[in-house]
């Protein structure tokens, strides 16, 4: 049903034997056979089980918490409230490993003390002999709440007199971009169009809910084995508990999905506190219902776009106002707002640009990182506006896009010059073509095709001075080991390193052992976030493997009496390129090199290009290392009696730079197609005065297997990226255009647009009815 095409337009000029090939991932067998151990599978002698009391209201004062009955219950070993954390009841939720940038305060109480600010805020921690006992204890806790006026809308929360949730004005962050002359730009326009677009909370809904085990070992080291995207959180855990960094050991086994929801710490500190209090191992696997309350979902955003365009389709100016609902705490809202601000114009060059963006606190769920990280929301709005502009001036929307696509050498929104290839046009053209003919309308069904392009960064914000380290070494028997603390969150992070090191050192990838996810025995790789894991840890692994290769080939060149450049490594052999009969097994080679004292291992560090931040008045400066470009196209049908939307075909076409593992790329495109479909059509956390109403999988509606359309992946390779072998990051990029393409397809089908997501059947029918009446 699903097919992948690698475009013949790729610039293949390197003889790659493993990279880019359709090879099964190294982690596939252990996962398919159910052998892979996840955080929740871990069992220890004498282990206790934890439960967390989450607030059931969004805005209240806490007059008291009575835990006496819970503590008195036999088998209950610890009940902790804010009263027990007087020395340390604060945890930093800022991006790990950097110094901040526009954020006033990213601390958050570990447990609510005298006030709850959102539904789900933790109030008490319990450790007991069993989950059932812990739950019984939890049910015995009496919280004396006094409900207070809350604020549940980010526009209301900025008004004078609004209840204060954060800082002294509810403003979590704000940015502006002032570029060119927008007044002049609008004056030059033949048409000016203004629209407001809004989008909703989306839940990550990773397969594996938050899970961890914590224990203090015989060396007084606090160990936490957790489902996290970031092992560097050991520092934040240590800081929160007031213990030295080298006394916290945080390991990440295989992770059952993150999507940003496990970027900020989730349950690690809670378990650390219980393990230290009880001196016993403590385990927690959140229930699905509590998982909805244990990490930050995608921010709701509102974008007002005012765009000037000539009748020939040239954009002359954009003025964009952006507001995001941060919820009750800052978490990563400032960075997500920055991504939305930089990404506000999509993949288009706009020389006269004015952007104002604000993230405001409310008593809603604290939103946080989620695949796309603000850029996706911004892109969805921008691509809807592009369609509306095309409709207004009577031009084909792809033609309008072509006239405005940013090109290599152009400055983007913040004045950063685009250095890598931009294949937006090729991707859009191929994606649309792959949809084929649009079916004719029938009695109840109307059909539409939709397109969206994008520009999404990969790699972290450059003033964070991001680095990644990796170690590569050959064993005496010719086998290969990679040590790199990258977390494997299910996207093939570990397997890609085997493929890269194996390619360079001529060892089949399935014979490479990768030690990952533990930064205390492996070099730290940085986070599996920001579409950076392959780019950064892949690059570090490439550097280390190349260093080992150079050492070996220098030795072998003497042996074969040729120059190192005349040798190659493949299939566990070293050989002379123009006379492959002259060869030696890798095992023999290692022996020879070892006898000569040649260094057969290397620890490499890869440093992302740094920058010094943005000019606060103009928003100009270098923000990201590079960007990925591509397109998604969708064919939908709409039932005009009911408003039901069916996605029939969904095509992603992306310039990935260089595919490292083609199957993994395909997996990202297919997963994105469904995640974006959910965002466009059915997924939405519904809050009433801040209280989550649909925190379960029976009411939170992700696409199911029965909602899967025909999906096609088109992979283009410009080899222009900053990652290994010219690859670009793709985890977030391939997701960025999906929802917009479906939204545009629905607009094309029904001849009118819905400006707030998701497009529920009810909203679609209302739009059809309104159009028919007008």
């Amino acid at each position, binding site marked *: 049903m699903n097919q992948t095409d690698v475009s013949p337009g790729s610039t293949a000029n390197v003889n790659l034997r493993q990279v880019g090939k359709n090879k099964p991932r190294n982690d596939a067998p252990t996962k398919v056979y159910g052998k892979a151990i996840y955080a929740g599978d871990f069992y220890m002698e004498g282990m206790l089980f934890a439960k967390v009391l989450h607030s059931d209201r969004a805005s209240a004062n806490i007059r008291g918490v009575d835990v006496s009955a819970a503590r008195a219950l036999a088998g209950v070993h610890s009940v902790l409230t804010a009263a027990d954390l007087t020395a340390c009841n604060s945890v930093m939720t800022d991006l790990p490993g950097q110094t901040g940038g526009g954020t006033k305060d990213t601390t958050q109480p570990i447990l609510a003390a005298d006030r709850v600010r959102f539904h789900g805020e933790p109030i008490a921690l319990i450790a007991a002999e069993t989950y059932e006992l812990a739950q019984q204890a939890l049910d015995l806790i009496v919280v004396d709440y006094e409900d207070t006026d809350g604020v549940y809308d980010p526009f209301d929360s900025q008004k004078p007199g609004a209840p204060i949730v954060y800082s002294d004005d509810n403003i979590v962050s704000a940015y502006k971009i002032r570029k060119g002359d927008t007044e002049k730009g609008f004056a030059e326009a033949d048409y000016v169009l203004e629209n407001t677009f809004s989008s909703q909370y989306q839940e990550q809904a990773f397969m594996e809910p938050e899970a961890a085990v914590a224990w203090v070992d015989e060396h007084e080291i606090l160990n936490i084995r957790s489902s996290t995207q970031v092992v560097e959180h050991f520092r934040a855990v240590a800081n929160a508990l007031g213990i030295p960094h080298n006394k916290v050991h945080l390991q990440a086994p295989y992770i059952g999905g993150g999507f940003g929801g496990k970027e900020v710490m989730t349950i690690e500190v809670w378990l650390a506190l219980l393990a230290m209090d009880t001196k016993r191992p403590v385990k927690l696997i959140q229930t699905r219902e509590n998982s909805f309350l244990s990490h930050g979902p995608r921010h709701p955003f509102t974008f007002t776009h005012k765009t000037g365009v000539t009748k020939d389709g040239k954009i002359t100016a954009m003025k964009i106002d952006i507001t995001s609902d941060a919820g009750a705490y800052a978490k990563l809202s400032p960075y997500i707002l920055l991504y939305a601000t930089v990404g506000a114009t999509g993949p288009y060059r706009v020389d006269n640009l004015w952007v104002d963006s604000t993230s405001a606190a409310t008593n809603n769920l604290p939103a946080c990182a989620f695949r796309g990280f603000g850029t996706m929301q911004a892109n969805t709005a921008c691509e809807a506006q592009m369609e509306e502009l095309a409709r207004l001036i009577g031009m084909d929307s792809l033609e309008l896009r072509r006239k405005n696509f940013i090109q290599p050498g152009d400055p983007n929104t913040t004045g950063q010059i685009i250095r890598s290839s931009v294949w937006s046009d090729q991707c859009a053209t191929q994606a649309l073509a792959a949809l084929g003919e649009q079916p004719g309308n029938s009695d*109840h069904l109307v059909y539409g095709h939709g397109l969206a392009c994008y520009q999404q960064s990969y790699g972290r914000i450059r003033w964070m001075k991001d680095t990644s380290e990796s170690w590569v070494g050959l064993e005496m028997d010719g086998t290969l080991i990679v040590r790199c603390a990258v977390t494997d969150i299910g996207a093939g992070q570990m397997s890609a390193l085997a493929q890269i090191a194996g390619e360079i050192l001529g060892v089949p990838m399935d014979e490479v052992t990768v030690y990952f996810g533990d930064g205390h025995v492996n070099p730290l790789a940085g986070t599996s976030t920001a579409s950076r894991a392959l780019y950064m840890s892949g690059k570090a692994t490439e550097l280390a493997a190349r260093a080992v290769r150079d050492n070996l080939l220098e030795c072998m060149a003497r042996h074969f009496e040729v120059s190192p450049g005349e040798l190659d490594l493949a299939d566990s052999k070293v050989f002379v390129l123009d006379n492959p009969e002259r060869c030696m097994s890798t095992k023999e080679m290692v022996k020879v090199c070892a006898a000569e004292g040649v260094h057969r291992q290397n620890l490499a560090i890869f440093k992302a290009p740094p920058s010094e931040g943005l000019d606060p008045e103009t928003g100009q400066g270098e923000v990201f290392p590079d960007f990925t470009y591509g397109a998604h196209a969708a064919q939908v049908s709409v039932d005009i*009696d*009911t408003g039901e939307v*069916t996605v029939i075909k969904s095509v992603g076409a992306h310039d990935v730079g260089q595919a490292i593992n083609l199957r993994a790329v395909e997996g990202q495109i297919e997963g994105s197609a469904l995640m974006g479909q959910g965002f466009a059509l*059915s997924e939405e956390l519904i809050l009433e005065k801040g209280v989550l109403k649909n925190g*379960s999988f029976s*009411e939170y*509606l992700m*696409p199911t297997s029965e909602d899967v359309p025909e999906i096609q992946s088109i992979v283009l390779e410009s080899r222009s990226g900053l990652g290994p072998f010219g690859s670009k990051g793709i985890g977030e990029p391939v997701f960025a255009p999906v929802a917009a393409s479906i939204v545009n397809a629905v607009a094309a089908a029904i001849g009118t647009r819905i400006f707030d997501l998701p497009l529920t059947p009810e909203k679609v029918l209302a739009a059809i009815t309104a159009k028919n009446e007008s």
Partner: protein
Amino acid sequence: MLPSFDLYQPQSLGDALQALAKSDEMQPLAGATNLVPDLRGKRETCRSFISLKALDDLRYINREGDRVTVGACTTISDILRDSAMQTDAPALYAAAEIFAGTMVRNAATIGGNICCGSPSADTVPALLTLGAEVTLSSASGERTVPLDEFYVDYKKSVKRADELLTSVSWSIPAVNSVNLFYKLARRKGDAITVTGVAVMIAAQDGVCCSARIALGSVGPTVFRARAAEDLLTGKALDEDLIEQAARTAADQCAPIDDIRASAGYRLQTAFSLTRRLLTQAWKQLA
């Protein structure tokens, strides 16, 4: 998490009925596909259940003459595996095809779907248009009740606490009839119905001789739109009549607003889907 509860697992129908006769609190469970989410969601307060899992003699599909009888523990997947159901109960088969998702269909039973009493139960509109009857058994005897008289209010039925619904039966639709079902929901798999409509129209020479229309999720129970049925019966079908009947059916709806849809949307789609199914039936009969 799931609360702790008592579970009795009888090995025979007789034991099950005896247990129900002795206890006021015990509730039967079969597939538990509604019960488990309700327990987790703290909507279900009962903590004592009697499992019907072992009662294989309640899992059957029997045909005698033009009568089809289905045991209460027959799963939705069992119905789909019986290809004759496509003609013996077209709307029921259609409902089974889009009932929840594969995993739920493998566990959920037809008896459970009827007894939960949810207005969104997908088999019920179909069964109402088939004119189905249910058999209620207890330690003291057995009685048969038309499904149309089974529900009295939201999640309330005439079934006594000591009774078990043991089977549902109906007559195979006449040759000159069309039986249709449409489920409107917010996604295709594992979705709770927003508006459900089933119709059974029989016609002779273009004149409707029998009409049944049943609506789900637009009132406290699934119900028959009697006034609309009366409007059609004995008349030649045409667009105006169908429009009028659909309007009359919608007038009988009393939907509520909830997180899945507004009452207004339910009313609007109850009308348009009734009109659509009646039109399809009319065209197929012509």
